């Protein structure tokens, strides 16, 4: 039997790889403080929060839907956890209930979309507002603080560094990896393992490509969709936990706009709004690319209000790069080859 090896193609790589590459080089050259151990530590920590959100987003996008409520869920579950800590509920319970809230909210999203057959964009747009408002009402729009005591020492512990390597005296010369990054690493490893080693990938791709095919193959499509939304809710609550531990307090508006960034990271990673395909590796690179941009801008002292313009531009750049690379792949490869081999192997040679 003939063997067909999957041919290597530039366009098979996630376009977030190119964006990350371009952005990283540009930032390293233009902003001197960018490529320091301290900043990279910070970059990884910040991307962790977005990564959790965009992992959930990627799975939802693969099923052909979208979850705009992740930012709202982040705010809401954060306020739930912070308020309980303030009421001296033991940290482990506060966290458990916070995560459960995220799951339940995700299930509600899933039920509305599958059982009432509502479009996911509008449904999660509405629940985004609901979740954010709950956060505002419960917190009375004020940052929630709590007093450190023995019942919540877990929060303090999780906020510490797991690895700390000092290259010098100043903060920027210290490389730190906190437990938060470790938690994220474990979570995304588990999700990727499930994605690649269980039926998860074929389920989400089948549902996203054509729900009817999935149904005819005996797949319980509604159950899977609800499950995916629950996972997205859970990941948003986990992201919220990370924010809460890092800032040792919680601002009720902390999740606003994060759904936009989660979509950007996922789409840069090759997940389309049409569903039926996608890549989690791409999403990781996408999130890193996005935060490299943010970090470089803030280090360069550029006002934060400009950030969205740049992120929007990065998204467009990413999409364009992918299109272009697909279109001119043969020519690009030809040129590269002719440079390497020193003769012309181009298409029209």
């Amino acid at each position, binding site marked *: *039997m*003939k*063997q*067909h090896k*999957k041919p290597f*193609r530039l*366009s098979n790589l996630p376009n977030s790889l190119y964006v990350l590459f371009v952005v990283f080089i540009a930032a390293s050259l233009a902003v001197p403080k960018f490529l320091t151990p301290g900043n990279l530590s910070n970059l990884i920590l910040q991307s962790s929060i977005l990564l959790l959100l965009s992992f959930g987003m990627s799975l939802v996008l693969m099923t052909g839907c979208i979850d705009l409520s992740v930012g709202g869920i982040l705010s809401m579950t954060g306020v739930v956890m912070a308020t309980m800590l303030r009421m001296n509920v033991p940290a482990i319970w506060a966290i458990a209930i916070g995560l459960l809230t995220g799951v339940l909210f995700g299930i509600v999203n899933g039920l509305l979309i599958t059982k009432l057959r509502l479009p996911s964009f509008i449904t999660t747009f509405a629940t985004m507002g609901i979740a954010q408002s709950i956060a505002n009402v419960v917190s009375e729009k004020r940052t929630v603080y709590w007093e450190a005591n023995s019942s919540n020492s877990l929060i303090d512990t999780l906020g510490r560094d797991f690895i700390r390597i000092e290259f010098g005296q100043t903060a920027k010369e210290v490389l730190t990896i906190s437990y938060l990054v470790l938690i994220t690493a474990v979570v995304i490893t588990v999700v990727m393992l*499930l994605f690649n*080693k*269980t*039926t998860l*990938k*074929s389920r989400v*791709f*089948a549902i996203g*490509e*054509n729900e009817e*095919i*999935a149904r*005819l*193959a*005996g*797949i319980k499509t509604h159950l899977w969709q609800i499950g995916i939304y629950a996972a997205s809710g859970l990941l948003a609550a986990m992201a919220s936990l990370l924010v809460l531990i890092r800032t040792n307090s919680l601002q009720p508006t902390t999740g606003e706009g994060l759904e936009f960034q989660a979509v950007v990271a996922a789409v840069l990673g090759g997940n389309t709004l049409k569903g*039926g*395909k996608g890549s989690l590796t791409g999403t990781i690179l996408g999130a890193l690319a996005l935060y490299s941009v943010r970090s470089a801008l803030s280090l360069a002292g550029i006002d934060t209000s400009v950030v969205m313009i740049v992120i929007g531009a990065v998204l467009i750049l990413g999409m364009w790069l992918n299109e272009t690379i*697909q279109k001119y792949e043969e020519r690009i490869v030809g040129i590269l080859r002719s440079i390497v081999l020193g003769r012309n192997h181009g298409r029209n040679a």
Partner: protein
Amino acid sequence: MPKLLELQSIGKTFPGVVALDDVSIDLLVGEVHVLIGENGAGKSTLMKILSGAYQNDSGSLSIEGIEVLKNDPKKAEQLGIRMIYQELNLIPELSVMENIFLGHELKLKGNIFLNKRLMYEKAKEILGRLNIPIDPKTQVKHLTIAARQMVEIAKALSSKAKILVFDEPTSSLTSSEIKDLFAIITSLKATDVGMFYISHRLEELFMIGDRVTVLRDGKKITTKNIKDITIDELIEKIAGREITEIYPHKKLAAGEVLLDINGLSSEKFKNITMDLKSGEIVGLSGLVGAGRSEMARAVFGIDNYKSGSVTICGEKLVKRNPKVAGQKGLSYLPEDRKEQGLALPLNVRENIVIAGIDQLFPNHIINKQKETQVATSYVEELNIATPTTEKLTRFLSGGNQQKVVIAKWLLTKAKVFIFDEPTRGIDVAAKSGIYSLMDQLAKEGAAILMISSDLPEIIGMSDRVYVMSNGILAGEVRGTEITQEKILELAFSHVKGELITDETA
């Protein structure tokens, strides 16, 4: 041969329609039982009752002598009934083996993780048994339509299958691919499965079928051994009347050149030079993937081309877009009429006027009454079976949908028509209607380019035939040279027999 399945006195009524009336049919182990009839004759309803998608109102269904009560999709699946649908049901981003085992993946003992090695081995074994040379790890999006169809069969056989139903399996395959498919079906005859085979292509039935059942208007007309019936008798039974000539086109003296394609090249095709004259029907044959549709799309200005020129009625096209091509008198009836030819959610009237709306209302103010009047005249002229011009095109049969697309271009006063697979998935009577229309257009001085993978259609209708092979114009055949052998020889002249395409679409 033992009886595998028996459907007895099946009746099914939908509001206002008797879809099936006292239909009895059986299936033997190892046979191919052909079901044939016009669209709406009840073939699909019968098969949907078999697959559990519909419930029969009366009659009974038994498998291997045991009556099946309350059939539903899940039960049918357990009973080993598998449908190979006309629309392919594969997930392009997943691999062949992931598709084959979709919904019943093999897992490692006692946990949720997939046993990819076993899935690979099993998939390889099934594909090997069917003689399909595809690696199970290939992503389906890299496969040709023909290869996908084969994977579809492998998928059906991966779980205990007893009865296979092929619904128009060859509608998007070329002759050589059909041969491969038939080899697979023939090899299945030697196993313990029975097969129903639905197709509109009559020649095929004689190649593959053992028995044939003709349905008309929900009633069974006859069941016969294929050996005991001729193609003409079959056509007569299907239509309920005698159709003397399916292909009405008689050669006329060709007039002036209306479409002149000169040295057209792009990534998908190279240096295509051809012309179309007034009063001519010119066939464009070739294998799927030979670049025929791509060339047509470029001519019509949908896709760009690198070099060459297109001249319509003596005027060279400078701007390349469909609007300009349309204004100059060119029309394109795409292969996929549901996706590209029609706006399915719109009604007959809206679809007919959509392309000619600028000509109809030069000052851009729309008059619905005038639209209705124009649409009605075309509905009458082309014999489109629709109660009113307000009916949504989604609810029309394939043949009538095609006629709406033709009406749309007639309104723009098109002189050159490019028909891409004009009769795919259309029944015999409707096909004959489309052919008469094409003949009529040619008689009125239009020039027609007909792209088709149906060789009898190409041979029956064309004055001349161009054959493309792997992006190259392999040759032109005329008159008595137009034979199956000659066309196939040209079609294969530049191919390298592959099941994997390079496209990533």
